[in-house]
């Protein structure tokens, strides 16, 4: 023990002073860190970004940025569209008053439309849409036919009104093609309809992409009250947006934090009171847990900048784990008649330290995952446990001075009976118990099927999903999560690559695998293409005399014909650069352009209403095209890390075995390790038998089971003649840990539930197995080895 000087130098006041200084520093740091906005609630924050290539990560960010702020509202009425509009107008006022949004759009203004029209008009001979190009190449007479059709149609007012400026209607064709999905407008408001209702559309942009918790709550209650009001007026309201999913997640996380936190705290208070019937242990335990949690929170916020609310859900479960150290110390006081803190510390310190080490090892495993959420959980838990341990080791000796017991707690009798009788019963019945265990484990493992789905991170209520689906079917305008990233070595190369992709996408669209797609190259022809467009018009329409004939027959006078020919001739050298085109476009189109950087130009192609992702993913073999499927790639990541985590578990297992084998001899090491082995096996089998989710996250939970299993095994192994107090300590700590993780298992979020369930099953098993260890040591034929250990541990 020479490497642990604290054992030999016992200065309770000095160490307490150290602890106090440390906590002061934490408090000061916390005072700074926790006054900022430190709570993260968004679901995307949980996903790893480091694994992706930087340009894909950047494209994903840009792609998500706009959609994350959008909230879509549809006010519906059965009778008339006017009624739906009336609901929407009332709703608009309400939304504007809420101050949550920086944009609430009901009536769509013409201003930008007119501006864009004016800015692009001079380049009309260079800007042709794909359909016009095709008609011009194949049969320019058809273009004339189509024009006559449009002009004679009872709805051709706009084109007719513009005939003077745009006699061939090529610019109105180009403009129309910019808007692939046609929406119906009434009084400037988009009105959608299905079989039962008319729906008026309201689009809002939240002020902030990442809303703070209080704003999310305001949003959620705004949605609720608005829904009630529209309903009271006889209508129906549909609302959807990323923020609503976040709000729901944050709300359930908050509930879970309080369930787990309050549940664990009450459990600990009841247990401690029942055991010690004194206030001091209660206060000391709270102090250990409290300082652990505080330090964990402060250091996590300092380290990560922000901490996710889901981390706090796991953090709340730490209450039950951090309490272990305090309980072991306190329970040790039952072990001896003339107990004092100095003796107690000497006895429990090696066990506590090894326990801490194995727990830290498990949590370090979590930290190796690429998921920011798990990294936070790892650091939070590690710091929490470390500080709880430090509190026990540094502060308790002073505060436990003069701590004695003059009663035999009822629970001690129970645990003593437990540690004495249970092992005997097990060893008497070991044959058939072993058989049952083997069958149970084998059967459970047989039924185990891994599942890797990013959706496990978020479990929105079915109603929210139904509404989102309904809105998507009515208003298929919000881009899907998946998109293409298109690159080229320069603008021409990029343009060509994107055009190749878009042509293929058109075919996919014909097969109904998606509703719409949007790529810049359909709106902005590359510079060489602009010249080709001009030449195409020149040959097919202007030089051939076709346009002149058409205009004359339509009734234009000679002057107008000549003016048009002159304008066309003058426009020959016009070119529209991409930045100039982008300047006329709206936000959602501008966002498609990623820019040119060191010999690489990139854009994204967004997709709407995908029904067959496989058909789209197949297009990624095209030159310069990357298929970005965030959900799929994260799910694939889950699968990859599930396998890696299995390896990690194995490594942690081997390390623990090696460490214990080195310290206590191989045979004893194996004995101790049998506790976590059985716990792991049973835990896995339970997942199989109860058809529980088995994913990456369960493996991380198994890491904890390994750590805790080693703990319990160690405590009993090292108990020697203090088996009664050890079993009390282990049972108390197992009960509180069980409470914490059992409460986690009630979570509505799949991964949290899976975590809780796995750890709970593992701890119960470890608790059942641990008392068997001491038994073997006591009745071990190798008394000599045991003696040396005991003396070494007791420091005699």
């Amino acid at each position: 023990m020479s490497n642990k000087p604290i054992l030999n130098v016992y200065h309770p006041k000095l160490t307490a002073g150290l602890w106090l200084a440390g906590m002061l520093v934490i408090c000061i740091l916390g005072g700074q860190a926790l006054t900022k906005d430190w709570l993260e609630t968004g679901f995307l924050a949980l996903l790893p970004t480091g694994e992706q290539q930087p340009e894909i990560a950047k494209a994903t960010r840009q792609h998500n940025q706009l959609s994350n702020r959008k909230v879509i509202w549809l006010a519906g009425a059965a009778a008339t569209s006017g009624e739906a509009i009336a609901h929407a107008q009332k709703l608009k006022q309400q939304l504007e008053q809420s101050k949550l949004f920086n944009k609430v759009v009901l009536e769509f203004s013409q201003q930008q439309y007119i501006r864009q029209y004016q800015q692009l008009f001079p380049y009309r001979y260079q800007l042709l849409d794909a359909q016009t190009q095709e008609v011009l190449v194949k049969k320019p007479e058809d273009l004339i036919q189509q024009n006559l059709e449009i002009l004679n149609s009872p709805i051709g007012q706009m084109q007719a009104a513009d005939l003077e400026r745009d006699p061939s209607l090529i610019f109105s064709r180009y403009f129309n093609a910019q808007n692939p999905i046609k929406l119906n407008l009434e009084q400037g408001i988009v009105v959608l309809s299905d079989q039962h209702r008319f729906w008026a559309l309201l689009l809002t942009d939240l002020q902030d992409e990442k809303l703070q918790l209080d704003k999310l709550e305001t949003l959620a209650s705004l949605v609720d009250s608005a829904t009630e009001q529209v309903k009271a007026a006889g209508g129906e309201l549909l609302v959807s947006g990323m923020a609503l999913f976040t709000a729901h997640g944050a709300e359930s996380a908050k509930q879970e934090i309080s369930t787990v936190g309050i549940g664990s705290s009450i459990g600990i208070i009841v247990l401690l009171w029942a055991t010690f019937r004194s206030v001091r242990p209660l206060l000391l335990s709270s102090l250990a847990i409290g300082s652990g949690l505080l330090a964990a929170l402060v250091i996590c916020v300092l380290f990560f900048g922000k901490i996710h609310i889901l981390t706090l859900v796991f953090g709340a479960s730490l209450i039950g784990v951090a309490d272990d150290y305090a309980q072991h110390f306190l329970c040790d006081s039952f072990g001896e008649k003339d107990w004092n803190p100095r003796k107690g510390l000497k006895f429990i310190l090696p066990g506590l330290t090894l326990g801490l080490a194995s727990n830290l090892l498990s949590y370090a495993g979590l930290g190796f995952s690429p998921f920011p959420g798990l990294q936070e959980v790892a650091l939070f838990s590690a710091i929490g446990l470390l500080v709880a341990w430090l509190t026990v080791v540094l502060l308790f000796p002073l505060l436990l001075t003069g701590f004695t017991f003059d009663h035999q707690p009822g629970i001690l009798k129970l645990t003593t009976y437990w540690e004495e009788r249970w092992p005997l019963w097990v060893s008497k019945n070991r044959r058939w118990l072993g058989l049952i265990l083997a069958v149970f484990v084998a059967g459970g493992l047989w039924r185990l099927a891994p599942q890797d789905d990013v959706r496990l991170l978020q479990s929105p209520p079915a109603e929210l999903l139904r509404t989102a689906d309904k809105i998507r079917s009515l208003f298929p305008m919000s881009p899907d999560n998946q998109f293409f990233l298109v690159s080229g070595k320069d603008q021409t190369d990029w343009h060509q690559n994107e055009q190749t992709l878009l042509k293929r996408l058109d075919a996919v669209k014909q097969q109904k695998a998606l509703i719409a797609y949007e790529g810049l190259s359909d709106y902005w022809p590359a510079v060489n293409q602009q010249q080709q467009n001009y030449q195409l018009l020149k040959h097919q329409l202007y030089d051939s005399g076709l346009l002149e004939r058409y205009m004359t027959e339509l009734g234009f006078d000679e002057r107008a014909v000549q003016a048009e020919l002159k304008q066309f001739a003058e426009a020959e050298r016009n070119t529209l650069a991409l930045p100039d085109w982008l300047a006329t476009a709206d936000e959602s189109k501008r966002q498609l352009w990623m820019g040119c950087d060191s010999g690489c130009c990139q854009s994204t192609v967004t997709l709407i209403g995908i029904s067959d992702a496989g058909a789209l993913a197949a297009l990624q073999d095209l030159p310069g095209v990357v298929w970005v499927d965030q959900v799929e790639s994260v799910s694939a990541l889950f699968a990859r890390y599930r396998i890696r985590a299995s390896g990690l578990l194995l490594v942690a297992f081997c390390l623990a075995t090696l460490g214990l084998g080195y310290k206590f001899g191989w045979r004893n090491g194996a004995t101790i390790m049998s506790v976590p082995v059985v716990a792991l096996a049973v835990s896995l089998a339970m997942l199989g038998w109860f058809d529980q989710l088995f994913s990456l996250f369960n493996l991380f939970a198994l890491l904890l089971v390994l750590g805790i299993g080693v703990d319990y095994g160690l405590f009993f192994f090292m108990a020697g003649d203090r088996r009664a107090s050890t079993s009390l300590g282990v049972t108390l700590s197992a009960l509180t840990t069980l409470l914490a993780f059992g409460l986690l298992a009630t979570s509505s979020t799949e991964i949290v539930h899976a975590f809780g369930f796995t750890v709970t099953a593992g701890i119960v098993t470890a608790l059942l197995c641990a008392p068997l260890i001491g038994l073997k040591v006591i009745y071990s034929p190798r008394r000599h080895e045991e003696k040396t250990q005991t003396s070494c541990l007791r420091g005699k």
Partner: protein
Amino acid sequence: MILIKALLLYCLAFSQGVAGEAVLTEIAARLAKTPITQGDFHQQKQLKVLRKPLISTGTFTYDQNKGVIWKTLTPVISLLLVNESKLLTGQGEQAVPAAFGKVFKAMLGGDLAALTDGFSVTGTDQKTSWQLELTPKDEMLKKIISTMVLSGDTELRDLEIRETGGNITRISFDHITHPAQLTDEQQADFERLSP
């Protein structure tokens, strides 16, 4: 959302109105009300920029539940199908210009009261004929259309749309009948409108 904005000018053809004036009820009472109305149309568009009007003729069919078939036969054959939520032309699916379907329904189906949603209405009702002048209430529609004049007897006979830019469209309806059933061809056309 340029998409929506871009559609605006394109769509500003018709809208709806409020206030049921007495004359409207009187006229409406005289109009034949049947589920199906069909006939010929003669449309004349007078565009300022052109020296001669654009003239087209063809047939129309109105079905109370299904919408309108507008079949142009001269100078080019083309088909326009429209109901309250969908508009199909030779160029594919288009946005339905503001309540276009409803205005057609109101005019062709004799449900004049529906027009008051979006227009202020003045009118005269004489023994054999009537005339209505509609002025759009909608600010955006006002920018395009100054007035619409409807006239007829037991049927709507003439429709004149005067645009603010000076263009005028005149449509006259002829050979109006009210068959009890749609022909197979008409059925098939309407079928294309169903989602």
